[in-house]
């Protein structure tokens, strides 16, 4: 089975836009979080697609390696992010991001 790279990239773009919209539109912090994950994974998908396109070349591995990095970083980020959400919930009893505006100048 051979799917053209263009399609995969398009899918990646769609996923990314969904993620962006999710971040901008939703108020629930967990949903925002999931949207961010979606954006990350869309980027991962694009990387994989490029790596596949360059396949026999040695440089193709770089895409894979980067993806693994991103997954590892995302995992760490999830840990920190969820901890923050829990902390916010404890003080505000809500995970509505509109409630959290103490950085207002």
């Amino acid at each position, binding site marked *: 089975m051979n799917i053209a790279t263009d399609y995969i990239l398009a899918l990646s773009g769609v996923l990314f836009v969904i993620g962006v919209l999710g*971040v901008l539109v939703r108020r629930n912090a967990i949903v925002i979080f999931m949207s961010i994950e979606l954006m990350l994974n869309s980027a991962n998908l694009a990387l994989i697609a490029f790596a596949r396109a360059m396949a026999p070349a040695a440089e193709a591995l770089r895409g894979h390696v980067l993806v693994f990095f991103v997954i590892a970083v995302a995992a760490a980020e999830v840990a920190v992010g969820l901890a923050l959400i829990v902390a916010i919930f404890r003080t505000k009893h809500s995970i509505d991001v509109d409630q*959290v505006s103490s950085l207002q*100048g």
Partner: protein
Amino acid sequence: MSFSEVLQGGSLFAYAPLIIAFPLLGLLINMIFGRRLGERAVGIIASSAVGLSFVIAILQFFALSTHPEGTSVPIADWITIGQLAVPWSLKVDTLSVTMMLMVTGVSALIHVYAIGYMHEDVRFQGDPGRFTRFFVFFNLFVATMMVLVTADNFLMMFVGWEGVGLCSYLLIGFWFEKGEDGIGNAIAGKKAFITNRIGDFGFLIAMFLIFGAVGSLQFADVFHWAHEHGLENVDVITAITLFLLLGATGKSAQIPLFVWLPDAMAGPTPVSALIHAATMVTAGIYMIARNQALYDVAGLSSNLVALIGAATALFAATIAVGQFDIKRVLAYSTISQLGFMLAAVGVGAQVAGMFHLVTHAFFKALLFLSAGSVIQGIEHGHHHLEHVGANPGGGEAFDPNDMRNMGGLRSKMKITFWVYLIGALALSGIFPLAGFWSKDEILADANHESIVIFLLLTVAAFFTAFYMGRQILMVFFGQPRSEAAKHAPENPPVMTVPLILLAVGAILGGVLNLPGMHTLTDWLEHTLHVHVTEFNPVVAGLSTLLALLAIGIAWFVYGRQPMGKGSPDPLRRMLGPIFVGMENKWWVDELYQFLIVRPYIALADVLADVIDWRFWHDWFHDTVLARTFREGTRWLNDAFDLRVIDGIANGLGNLTQAISGRMRFLQTGYVRNYALSFLVGVLLVLSYFIFGSS
């Protein structure tokens, strides 16, 4: 090795250092063990230490009799820097051995006397613990005096010179809590030391000049140089000798530095006898005699020496006439007699000077010790009265030294009277006592050299006989003028035996240098340039006649009709203001006080208080420097820092605040808004890459 072999070999000279070591050993023993030894042992140790020194001096005398040229005995190196090389070494020659014999001999006798005297004195003064201290100081004095006379170079002589000054200071102030206002004795000691220091200053400068000219401080080198190059260097030698003379006037209490000696009588009587009459004060004479080679070249200095000596002899003799303190009369007499000796060495009669120095040591020590015996007798009488409950002082402080409180002691203190009389006659120059021969030799030499000196000395000799006659008559004749004098007992043999021995010396001292025999002249010839002075019967007759006349006048004034109790001195009526002048020592102390002491104190106060503290410390440093700095920084702070620097800083701050005031509305705190701006930013960057590059 037999004794004569030892003499032949001259090896006895090697024992010379012991003459210093024995007294040092004695003082160390007494200092360390004195408290445990008890008075008797302390006295015996101290006296025998000096006695052993006397034995050493005799050994040196024997050694010199076979080796009259003498020798130097090196002990150790002292200061060696570049050209300067000063060893510790002793000079043993006829001149120094004369001094050694005289000093250790008289010292030994006075030490013995002091055992008895101080035994009583420490009890009268109320601190028996100081008995040991006295003998430590006394031995120290003998040791330093020996350093002085045995010195082989100027610097070592200076060590002894200042060392005896220190002992003098310590012993004058021995009863440091007594005297006028409780501090009089201490002040007298200080005065002695400082006046002597002025003389020492002269000695120091002389040494610098000598070193500059000769490059050595050894006597031998310096005298050799003076013989060889003296005539080309008359100016330098004159300067040297004048500064040395300043030193001598300090130590030997001559004009202008004599003022300390009368006050020095504050010390216990053995001290007055030993240090301030017989030995230390003659150091100046000895030093000038020692430096004969230099003085021979410098005629001006020699003349000045003679003139100062003769003037002092007369001046001090007049003051002695007006004194009432038995020891002060003797003190001024000492100054006067030292003037005789100085005049002698000034006119080139070193032998006559040394001769008088030795005989004077005998009879003046005798007089002082007898005076001490008198004083102690009076104190005994005084204390005896206190014990029986009478009130002899009448409420006033009783002065046992005041001759107005004495009188009629002839019958109470027989031995003291006779030895005192012998001393007084010897001092007055009555034939055939010691003083007659030595004083006549001086007068004959002076007559030979200078008529002015001769006249001054002759008049001084007249006064000498007069004040001694006055003193004898006031103290021993007439009726007792106080209760204490009535009950004065004679002293124990430990005190009277040395008196008798000294009296023998005062009688027979003349044989040292009788006319026609010239024993001392021949003896000193090995060290000094001497000339034989022929006996001058005119001079001798004249001076004896004058002395007898003076004694006659004294009898006329004081003896014919003895002074009554509380009555004024008859001389006061006869002489009027002149007597007041004599009594007040011609106001020399007051003059020095006015000219030197008070200006120096005022200057020191002004320097310390006004210049150093108020001007320099407070005004300049605290006001000018510190306040200028403080006010300068305050100005920088107020005017410059606050307005200019702070203005700029605050302006920047205000600007920032204003700008940020606008910008803060961008910051809503909503994550969404930030994310949106993020997105816009990304889109802008992307559109730049996509469209901008084309």
